[in-house]
């Protein structure tokens, strides 16, 4: 036995080596591959750096030559004027490059703020007394007493506000330079005071200085590099890998060599593996050349870098970067290969290539989004998470847990795509003209189970994008309308219409008996308690950051809503329409493909993923699974709707009424488990036999 299996292993190794040999030989004999995979990545850094240097030198010269006009306002303008002049007069000798002397000219104006906005002034220096400043903060703080208390602890000194326009480079530079000078003046004065008096006088502050926080130059440069590195790499890998991938299958198809290859003793999986290894080889070559470029030009500083490109990259960062790029290469190569397998000709491949390019470039530029952190739902988005992770690593932030998660998520995506690719290649589409299967030909309802996940994928992406771009700006009510009515309900209607489904069947719109409603009344609060317990358990594994908790609390409290609105928008509407989408359309779509337990778990997990907030996934997935079970057992969606609405009400209303319920004690979880068991016992006693038995939700 053993001998047989080891000789089988040897056989497979031999076939794989032979196939890989073929792929590499073909690859190396193609000049385009060499140019795109080696030459281009090799040259792109020096070219980029030279261009950046030219641009930034020109910019620098312009900034040096410019005259910065500023105005002084505020109640203590006279004092201010003298201090500003003193600050500007500070010797430039010990300055670093960021503070080269510049021409600041005061302009006396009546309405300096409007001049600033109009772009005629670069800077407004506003000088306020402590009392004025405090009054202003008090108005802004709206009861945030902590900040005010901190203010009161400081000495009663005047405050300076530098107003500028961040979208004007001149104005920003003026603010940062003026700010730096004022800060230095403050330090020098304090030192002088201390020196003169020789006593432990609280140096306090000469003046509070309110200014935009200019990140340290190095980190800023890291951020710039971090933003462009991933898209750049993705672009290079896609173009490099693309040449190989196109040749790998659609080229072979066009030439007819694939048929020859498929009739040999090589397995489909081996053929795919060899091709993918070849593309990954190209991808890795590109990644290594890029990281080596980084090492040569940036870390070792082979030649002088432009100001905004100078970055300190630790050796460990290079290793982490390589590790992050590995699964990226995997996803890209598998996708390209699938694409190549899917296209019948080289031409067709080129047509599909462009949308795929965009599909990768968008998430790979996720790091450009302002304020996005790896410790958020972005970690679940393959490619985008790599982009954000790379930026964080380049500014020296190592969130190991989430870096690991990033690696795992994108790696999983890579494996999944490879599997799809293997499947795509084993279908007969490879050889023959478009091969439909039975369901595809019949279309309509038969096709629905095969497509339902694809639709929910689209809905997820839509939700993710809208919440990224609009999340903060929409009020809660609008958010509910867009997400729940627009995406979930609209999507469901679209699916029902597209596949000509029977709403009554798909949504399980059937009446139930009275005991079922009682079970729901018991079950919903019980399940909520259990969910809270589970969330706490999850918290042990994946701690919720403080800041998250705060914003979640704000969301829960939603002060601008009246109670009835809270109940309508956050309990009733989600209860009805999220059920229609998830326990209606999704559940019946997956029903034929999964056994009941798996069906509940998968439905729950997908429901959880739709709650973009990473830290709500566990409790919502739990709720989703329970609700799926309720629909399966009762044979109707209505109990699940009530359950869902009750659940949300139980979660929100006490918080809204500011009833600060203490942490639920441990025994309450036990109570929850008991209540849940009771509810399911009742549900089971009055179960709908037809619904449980019928695979397609019929009858």
């Amino acid at each position, binding site marked *: 036995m053993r001998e047989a299996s080891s000789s089988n292993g040897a056989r497979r190794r031999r076939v794989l080596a032979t196939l890989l040999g073929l792929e590499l030989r073909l690859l190396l004999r193609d000049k385009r591959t060499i140019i795109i995979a080696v030459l281009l990545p090799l040259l792109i850094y020096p070219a980029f750096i030279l261009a950046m240097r030219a641009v930034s030198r020109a910019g620098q010269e312009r900034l040096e030559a410019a005259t910065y006009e500023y105005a002084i306002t505020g109640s203590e303008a006279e004092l201010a004027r003298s201090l500003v002049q003193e600050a500007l007069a500070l010797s430039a000798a010990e300055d670093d490059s960021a503070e080269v002397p510049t021409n600041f000219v005061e302009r006396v104006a009546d309405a300096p703020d409007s001049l600033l906005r109009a772009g005629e002034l670069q800077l407004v220096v506003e000088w306020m007394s402590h009392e004025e400043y405090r009054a202003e903060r008090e108005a802004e703080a709206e009861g945030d007493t902590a900040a005010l208390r901190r203010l009161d602890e400081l000495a009663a000194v005047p405050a300076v506000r530098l107003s500028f326009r961040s979208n004007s480079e001149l104005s920003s530079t003026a603010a940062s330079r003026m700010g730096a000078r004022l800060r230095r003046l403050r330090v020098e004065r304090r030192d002088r005071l201390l020196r003169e008096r020789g006593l432990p006088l609280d140096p306090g502050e000469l003046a509070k200085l309110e200014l935009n926080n200019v990140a340290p130059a190095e980190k800023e440069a890291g951020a710039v590099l971090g933003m462009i590195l991933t898209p750049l790499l993705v672009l290079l890998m896609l173009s490099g890998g693309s040449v190989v991938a196109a040749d790998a299958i659609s080229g072979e198809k066009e030439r*007819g*060599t694939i048929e020859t290859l498929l009739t*040999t*003793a090589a397995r489909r999986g081996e053929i795919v593996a060899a091709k993918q290894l070849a593309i990954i080889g190209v991808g890795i070559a590109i990644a290594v050349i890029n990281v080596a470029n980084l090492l040569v030009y940036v870390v070792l500083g082979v030649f002088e870098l432009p100001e905004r490109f100078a970055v300190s990259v630790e050796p460990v960062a290079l290793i982490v970067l390589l590790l992050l790029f590995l699964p990226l290469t995997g996803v890209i190569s598998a996708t390209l290969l699938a694409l190549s397998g899917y296209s019948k000709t080289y031409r067709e491949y080129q047509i599909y290539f462009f949308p795929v390019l965009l599909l990768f470039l968008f998430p790979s530029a996720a790091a450009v989004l302002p304020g996005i952190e790896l410790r958020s739902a972005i970690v679940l988005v393959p490619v985008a998470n790599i982009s954000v992770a790379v930026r964080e690593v380049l500014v020296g932030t190592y969130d190991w847990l989430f870096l690991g998660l990033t690696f795992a998520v994108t790696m999983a995506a890579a494996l999944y795509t490879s599997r799809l690719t293997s499947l795509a290649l084993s279908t007969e589409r490879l050889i023959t003209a478009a091969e439909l299967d039975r369901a595809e030909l019949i279309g309509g309802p038969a096709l629905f189970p095969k497509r339902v996940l694809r639709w929910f994928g689209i809905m997820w992406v839509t939700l993710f994008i809208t919440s990224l771009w609009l999340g903060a700006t929409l009020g809660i009510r609008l958010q509910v309308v867009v997400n729940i009515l627009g995406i979930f309900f609209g999507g469901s209607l679209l699916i029902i219409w597209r596949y000509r489904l029977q709403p009554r069947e798909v949504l399980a719109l059937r009446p139930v008996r009275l005991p079922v409603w009682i079970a729901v009344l018991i079950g919903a609060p019980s399940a909520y308690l259990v969910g809270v317990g589970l969330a706490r358990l999850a918290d042990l594994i994946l701690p919720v950051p403080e800041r998250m908790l705060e914003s979640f609390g704000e969301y829960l409290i939603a002060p601008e809503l009246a109670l009835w609105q809270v109940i309508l928008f956050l309990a009733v509407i989600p209860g009805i329409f999220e059920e229609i989408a998830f326990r209606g359309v999704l559940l019946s779509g997956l029903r034929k493909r999964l056994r009941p337990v798996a069906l509940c778990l998968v439905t729950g997990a997908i429901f959880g993923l739709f709650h973009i907030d990473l830290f709500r996934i566990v409790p919502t997935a739990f709720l989703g699974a329970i609700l799926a079970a309720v629909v399966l057992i009762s044979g109707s969606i209505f109990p699940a709707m009530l359950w869902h609405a009750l659940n949300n009400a139980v979660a929100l209303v006490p918080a809204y009424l500011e009833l600060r319920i203490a942490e639920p004690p441990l025994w309450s979880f036990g109570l929850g488990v008991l209540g849940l068991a009771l509810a399911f016992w009742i549900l089971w006693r009055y179960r709908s036999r037809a619904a449980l038995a019928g695979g397609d939700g019929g009858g």
Partner: protein
Amino acid sequence: MTEPTVAVRGLAKTFYDEARGEVRAVDGIDFDCRPGEIFGLLGANGAGKTTTLRMLATILRPTAGVARLMGRDVVEEPVAARRTLGFYSATTALYPRLTARETLEFFARVNLYPEEKVDARVDYLVGRFGIAEYVGARVEKLSTGMKQKVSIARTVAHDPPILIFDEPTVGLDVINALEMARVIRELRDEGKTIIFSTHIMSEAEKLCDRIAIIHNGKILASDTLDALRVATGRHYLEDIFVDYVGGVEEMPGFIRESGSAAE
């Protein structure tokens, strides 16, 4: 009688086509082939020849039925089945960026011809098919005739007992077509099992030991030419064919003259 090396029972393939709906390309066929014999599949364009042969080569998955090559089921043991097989068709091509020698080495190895004998086997093939002159040249530089020789050599690179030729003479000039027929006969005489498909009557008449007439996915008759003559009382294969198929007008795309363009 020797054991059949190819056994086909109830083999069927249905395609679902957007324009035409359900297409029963192959509709339950049975046949056997034996070593040292050329078995011919004769049928018009679209009769189901290529679909049948692709199922034997495991490129297509049968909708129903079984097929065994050297006792290996094509669905259960596709890899083992393919190892016993050399597949040649007008659409199987060579890698343009490989040399002739590299091509032969690759196909011998990937079909698991014993590693230590690969060199000797390639030398033998180079000599036998007369490709020594250009064995080091890239395939893309070769003429059609040269490519054809390399192609046949790669089909038998791993010395398989079964050889499938799917309309191998399509697109060849007369000289090359005759050369192809000569090689196929030679291989038969060496004891290979050969399945040969064609839509050209004269080709089937001259080359095949047994002929199966395939039409609309069904095999209407399958026997030696002499037995078919006895059964129908006609002499020419063309007449025999029409007898079975029941009228030329039912066969769009059917070409009666040999050697003309096809597909």
